[in-house]
Every structure is written in structure tokens, then in C-alpha cells.
């Protein structure tokens, strides 16, 4: 039994960061930074229960969408004029554990089939499983360098190309990357940091009543997980439905020239590298508007998501300047 998402006390920004990614997966994942003991991992694992269903090609191990892009196996079927039937499966949170080996990440030759039938067949790895799902890396800053390289490579192209042991296979690898880390334990490679669409900061709660609430719920859950879940089930269903509605709605929200102008106004005043910030800010604001059941993007939506989108992209030189940029960001919204 997993602790229910809606039962997590406070930590609204972290929850929002995760929810926005469920609504629009192209936002590009979320990095959760925070101190020890602040429900980082709990939240990500709890997300699984809220995830909606997606349509996939039946029997496809990498969850190819019926409209493509396709993996080598699906393409072969199409070439042979086989019909691709569609089934619905629930989105999942796939975990990338520390200590994973390279062959399990990218996939490799299916050894048993090879011995029995002399047939070279691809055995999918975690990247295949993670396609169109969440890929969760706990303590991402402690992940081995050579595994990080694999993630960067596949994230950039959205495809995983396997050429090893005589198997040759290609499949889409568009996953929503979620990482948690405690910055005190070491830095994250800048390249990987930039891959994350959003970045949220979690802090422990300072107020006593909230802390007592955390403790109470945890005890209740420990004592009777099933009973605890039942208590929260209604809230879970409510949130799940809200997310599903937003998922249907967000693409219908127009991105007007005015909105684009406002986004650029924000980003051009801050010292940011590249254009990823603009795009993410726009997408996140749209997803947030949809979540709030609105039909257009307003300044408030931008204000709400801006810290999540920009925090990790603000230039970090001397220490005064970090807060300087954050101040500037606040100032920008205040002046409005």
C-alpha cells in the first residue's frame, strides 16, 4: 500500500510540479530539491495512484502510441500489414534504482530465447518501460556518471537506439523525468539540471500544528494502511478526475500573442541561458490554467508557475546574485 498523495500535508509547490507534468507531459519533468525527511520520495511514489490511462498499441512493451512514433517491433508489424489494436493502460512511475547496470537501462539481447531458438530478440530495458511514463530517480545526484550519460542521450533525442550483441533496435523513449535530491549531498551535472522542465524546492514545515498533522497521519497509515487509504479515497478520486479534465482541456487553451509577449517580458529581464525557459514557462502556465479550469492564460497563472520554471535556470555566480535574481523575479510580478 502506498501513502495517498492527497494525504501529504502542505508541500503544495512539490505537488503542483508533479501534477503539471501529468497534465502536459511535454513540460519536461521535475527536479525536487530539499532537505532530508521532507516527503520527497513519498510524494513521487504516491503520484502513481493519480495517473490517468493512456492508449497504447496492444502488447507493445514500450507503450507506443497508436499514432506513433513507433518502436522497431511495431514498425515491423506495420510493414507486414498487421493490424495494431489499441488498449488502455494506466500510466506508471517507473523507478531507476541506484546500482542499475547499463544493459538494464537500454535493454539487451533476450538470452533465453537466443539459446532455445537461436533467435536474436530484444529484451527491453528501463527506458522502454518508461516511454510515456514517469521515470523516477531517487537521489539523482548520486547516480553513476555513465548512467547519467545514457539518460542525457535518450532524453535529447527522445529515442533509444540499441546496437549491441548483434541486436539492433530502436524505440521511442519519451519519459517524464522526476528526480529528487538533497543538494547538501553533492551537485547535479549542469547538463542534467537543464533537462528538467521544472524545479521545486521543498522545506520542512515549521508550524507545530502542521507537524503534528504529519505525525498523526503517518501513525495512522503505519497502523492500518488500507483503512487510511479508504479515508482518503474520495479525495484521491476527486483529484484524479480534476487532472483528467485538465488533460482534455489544456490543448484548447489558446496561446495568444499577448501571452507570449508577457512571457518574453519576464524572461528577457532575467539572465537566463537558452530558450528552454520561455517554452517551459508557457506550457506550465497553460497546464496550470487548465488545472484551475480556466479557458485562457492570465498573469496570475504565469506568476504561479514562474518560480518552478525559472529557479534552476537563473545564472548562479556569486552568492549575492542568486538572491538578486530571485528578487528581480519577485519584483517583476510585484510591479504588475
Amino acid at each position, binding site marked *: 500500500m502506498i501513502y495517498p498523495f492527497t494525504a501529504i500535508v502542505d508541500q503544495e509547490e512539490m505537488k503542483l510540479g508533479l501534477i503539471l507534468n501529468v497534465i502536459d507531459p511535454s513540460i519536461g519533468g521535475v527536479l525536487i530539491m530539499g532537505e532530508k525527511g521532507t516527503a520527497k520520495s513519498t510524494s513521487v511514489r504516491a503520484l502513481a495512484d493519480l495517473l490517468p490511462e493512456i492508449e497504447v498499441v496492444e502488447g507493445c512493451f514500450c507503450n507506443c502510441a497508436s499514432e506513433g512514433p513507433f518502436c522497431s517491433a511495431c514498425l515491423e508489424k506495420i510493414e507486414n500489414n498487421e493490424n495494431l489494436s489499441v488498449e488502455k493502460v494506466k500510466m506508471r512511475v517507473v523507478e531507476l534504482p541506484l*546500482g542499475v547496470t547499463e544493459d538494464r537501462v537500454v535493454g539487451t539481447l533476450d538470452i533465453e530465447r537466443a539459446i532455445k531458438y537461436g533467435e536474436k530478440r530484444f529484451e527491453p530495458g528501463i527506458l522502454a518501460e518508461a516511454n510515456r511514463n514517469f521515470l523516477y530517480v531517487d537521489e539523482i545526484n548520486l547516480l553513476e556518471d*555513465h548512467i547519467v550519460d545514457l539518460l542525457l542521450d535518450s532524453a535529447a533525442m527522445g529515442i533509444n537506439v540499441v546496437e549491441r550483441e548483434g541486436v539492433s533496435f530502436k524505440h521511442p523513449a519519451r519519459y517524464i523525468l522526476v528526480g529528487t535530491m538533497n543538494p547538501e549531498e553533492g551537485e547535479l551535472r549542469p547538463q542534467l539540471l537543464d533537462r528538467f522542465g521544472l524545479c521545486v524546492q521543498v522545506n520542512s514545515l515549521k508550524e507545530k500544528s502542521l507537524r503534528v498533522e504529519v*505525525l498523526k497521519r503517518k501513525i495512522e497509515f503505519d497502523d492500518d494502511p488500507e483503512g487510511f487509504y479508504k479515508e482518503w479515497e474520495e479525495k484521491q478520486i476527486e483529484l484524479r478526475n480534476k487532472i483528467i479534465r485538465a488533460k482534455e482541456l489544456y490543448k484548447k487553451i489558446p496561446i495568444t500573442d499577448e501571452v507570449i509577449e508577457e512571457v518574453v517580458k519576464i524572461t528577457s529581464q532575467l539572465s537566463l541561458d537558452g530558450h528552454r525557459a520561455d517554452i517551459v514557462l508557457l506550457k506550465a502556465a497553460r497546464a496550470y490554467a487548465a488545472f484551475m479550469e480556466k479557458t485562457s492564460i492570465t498573469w496570475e497563472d504565469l506568476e504561479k508557475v514562474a518560480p518552478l520554471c525559472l529557479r534552476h535556470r537563473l545564472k548562479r*555566480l556569486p552568492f549575492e546574485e542568486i538572491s538578486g535574481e530571485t528578487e528581480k523575479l519577485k519584483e517583476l510580478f510585484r510591479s504588475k
Partner: protein
Amino acid sequence: MIDFVSVVEQESAKLTLLLNLIEPRCGGVILTGERGVGKSALLRTLKDLAKSYNFVYLPLNVTEETLLGGIDLEETLRSGKRVFQRGLLSKANQGFLVIENIDLFPPEILSVIFEVQSRGEVIVEREGFKIREPAKFQILATLNLEESDLSMHFLDRFGMCVYMETLREESKRREVIKANLFESFAPEGVKALAESVKFARELIKEVQVSEEILEFISELVIQEGIFSHRAEIYLYYASKAYTALLGERKVSEEAVRRVAPLVFIHRKRYFNVSRDEEVQPSESEDKKRSEARATNPNQEGGGDKREREGGKEEQAQSEYSSGEARAENVTSQAIPSSGKERILPIGESFSVRPILFRRDRKVRKITGKRTKTKVKGRGGRFIRSTLRKTPDIAISATLRAAAPFQKVRGKKDKLIISEEDLRFKEKERKMRHIVIFVVDGSGSMGVKERMSITKGAILSLLKDCYQKRDKVALIVFRKDRAETILPITSSVELALKKLKDIPTGGKTPLSAGLMEAYKLIQKAMLKEPEARFVVFLLTDGMANHTITNRPVMEEVELICKFLRDLPSTDFVVVDTENKQSYIKFNLALNLAQALGARYILMEDLKRETLHNLVNRSKLGR
């Protein structure tokens, strides 16, 4: 051998273990303390006390494969089917994982253990396996503080912590000797204790915790300035277990108070809390300074003298700061009245936060503990299989290579493997670096005892180098030249001696210091082609003496360019400038950019560790 009951004193340590036997949700224990205080001895007595429990001991040479599980070689070769062998962590399910000397285990191994523990499940995704097994366990560990420091992040995973002290009282010491020499056993006592644990395990189901007590728990945590929510959760279970052990049914405030220190000691924060305050310029500092100026006109004189000396640097640095501000700074800084050199003592040392360097592509034979490298020969951690021949065969990959041909080769009951199927293991291991300290010894470092703090920082870095088995060298630049006061050596002790004697005073020939480092590295590269270098440059970045006829900054930038071109060399600029002062130049930042260096404020080198906490609490906070 000795048993649990016969261990003299150490009541807190014993209590934590008992509480965990009663209620495993207490979250495990880490026992720390001086060498020979009996940490491991106490842990080993548990087995007899709790015979029905599952204890799994973690051997020091454990690999990821044995931890998580991996391929069962014999079975696999026989059957031609991949057969899985369970790992230690899933064997510890519903029990305790015992880790003696946790400080000696590589952090990668510990990360894996804690990750599995927090999930309560082993997920094996390696060598073609994809297996999930339950692994709910608590960790009982011992930690030797002198050897190394476990990070706060890891510590937070432990429910309780005890600092075991050597018994000073003579009669107690005699008891300890006797207990160990005569292998004293108290089988009756052990039996009775085991009974009360058993009883408490039943009773705890009936123990009540009132609303007030829950609030009291949170209050205590907040009072102690602890942030992690784990503190409340573990304190709750510890109080409950303690109440059950007392044979009571209602948790009292006293019970909470008794166990609270055991849950709190490793979670307290001493450093980051004051962070925000540090950034604020402190009024009293400035007041003190102006007072000092008023009462000591000599200092003013010293300042003027220095200003005259610094005429050249004025012009060079005008692009970074206005001359006016600079002049003000020089006069406001208290230059020692003599204006000459002096030797400042080594300031307080601390644990250094981890500074990571990227792996490179070289294959080496070097050992050490800092950065990962590919290794020649045996040893090291398996990262991937390769066709390139190494001494270790990668079984799983070899089987995969051979698999498709088994039919053609006419396999009967055994697999047929030929030469071209062989795959080898590419391995990595940690290596040491050669760390070169380039220290600014100029007059500005004498201001407000900056050099003392800097020496403390170097000492801390040297200790870190010792733990990582690095080699070190020391270069000091001051007056008109730079000098290698300690050539490359593995003797950190020698470095310590030299460090003490570094004088302060005179001008700042920054470029000479950089040049000296350049020459040193070039020479060392010939001798040790496999080496990786790290240059720690401790300076405020102000330069005012040249070795050529170029303007100061131009010369510095030119040498930086040379340095950047050195292969296998990383740079870290530690900014020694006092950031609490109103006037800051941040010149070290420009230097860091020119070098492509990591930039760290001296104050940010620190990291929170248990060692600090224990020392503080021993000093009465």
C-alpha cells in the same frame, strides 16, 4: 565473549537497542564513540539476547551484486538459463542489517542500502534480471568518528544515535576489564531481559498516546531547531517502546523526554541555521572597526603606506571597481601596525563539504578515494562489458554473446562457448589526486585574522586529502615571489608543519603563484603521467605585483590561459575575502572565470556532520 547484560554501563546505547527490538519502527541505531569503547562488542551481544530475530551482517568487502543479488554462476552455466541468487538486503527482510564500522564502507554502497531501505523493496535491474523482493529492515551500525564522517543526510535515516563515552571512573574501568577477561556471563539476566522484551512487544499494542503527547513531541522537535519530519516519527515510536518496556500503558512526558536525546543528537543543526544572519552585515562589527580606528592611529598609518604601495594595482583594477571605493577600503582595513610580516596561528578546522570532479577517460592503476577512474587489473566495480580484453570475464555478457549460436553449435546439456564469445568487465575504482594548495600570503590576508581562518580552511582540506589518500603540495605567494614550501608528498603531517609557519605580509604577486603551480604540475606530469591534479587557490583575487612588465590583470589572465591548457587538471578558487564587510570586490570570482575554476566562498567549505555535533555537545553546546 561477553553478553548484553554484562556490558558495563552504556545504558543509553543498550536502551536504543532494546527499544528497536520492541518496536522496529524506531528506525535503527547508529552507535558512535571513541575507538575501543565497545561499540561492536555491544552489537555482537544482541544475537544471544534476541535469538528469534533475523540479523544479517554486512561484510566489509560487499559488492553491489552480493547486496542486491545477481547471477548464480554455477546454476546458470549448468542450465543455460539465467538463475538468480538472492542478495543480502532481501535476506535481511523483517530483521536487522548490522553494519560494523559504517565509515569504512564506500558511499556508493551505502547509497544503495539506504535507497532500498526507504523503499522497503529491492528492485534488481542488472545483468538482465528484473526482480522485486521485499526488504523491510532496520540498520544497526557502529561508526568510528576519527576515520571519517558520515553525511547528515545518511544520519537522518537512523532512528537513534548514541555517543558512547569511555568510562573514566576507576571502579567502572576495573569492572570492564574483569568482564572482558573473565568472559562474564549472566545467563539468568539475559534470559530475564529477553522475557521483558518479549512482554513489551505484546504490551506496546495497548500503549496509548494522547493528543497532548503528540503535540509535546512536535514542540520538542521545534524547540531543538530540527527540521526533518523523521524526528517526530521516530520519537513517537521510541516513546511508545520505552513506555512498554517500563510496563506502562500510557506514554508520559517523562518517557518522551527520556528518549528524545537519543532521537535528536544526530539531527541538530549548528551551521546552516545561522546562514541568514551571516549574510546580514553586522552592525557591531562595523562599530568595532571604527572604534578600533579611533583608538589606534597607527593602523591608519599602516593603511596609508599600503595604499602608496598599491599604486600600480589601482590602475589595473579600475575596471573592476572604482578607485574611490578601493581607497576607502584600504584605509578602513586594519593593517597590522608593524606593516611587516607576522605568523598567524591556524584557525578552527571543520569537515569539508564534498567537492566532486568529473571522471575522465584514462585507464589507470592508481588507487585512492577521491574520484572514479577506469582501472587496469583486478579490483574495482563492474560498470559495463567490453570486447577489450581485461583480466575479468563478464559472464552474463559472454552468455548472451554465445546464446544465439547454441543450436548451430549443437548444444546438448552444456553450453558451448568459444573464444569470440568472451566479453570482459570494464571496471572502475576511486583514485587519488595530487592536490596543490596555492596560498595568498600577502598583507591583506592579515586583516582581521583572515589568514588564521584561511589556515583553518587549509587544514580542513588537508584532512580531507588524507581521507581521500591524495598527495599534496603547498605554494605560497607574497612580497615579490612565489615559493613551493612543500613539494609533492603524501605526508599530510609534513604539510601541517609547513602550514603553521606560513607568514603573512607584503604585496600580492598572484601571477607568480600561478606560474609556480604551472611549473610544478608540468614537472610532476613527467613523473606521474596517470596523475590528476587539483589546484586549490586560496586568495581574495587582488593582485598588485607582476613578474613581467605587463599590467597586473593582463599578466594574470595570460597565465590563467596557460594553466587552463594543462591536461588532467582541475581548479578550485576559494575566495578568502571577508564577505561580511560592506566593501567587497569579488575579484576572486573573475579569477575563477579566467581559470574555468570551481568557485567557493571559504565559509561554504564547511559541511554539517555528526563529528561537529558531537564535539559541540561535548563542549556543552
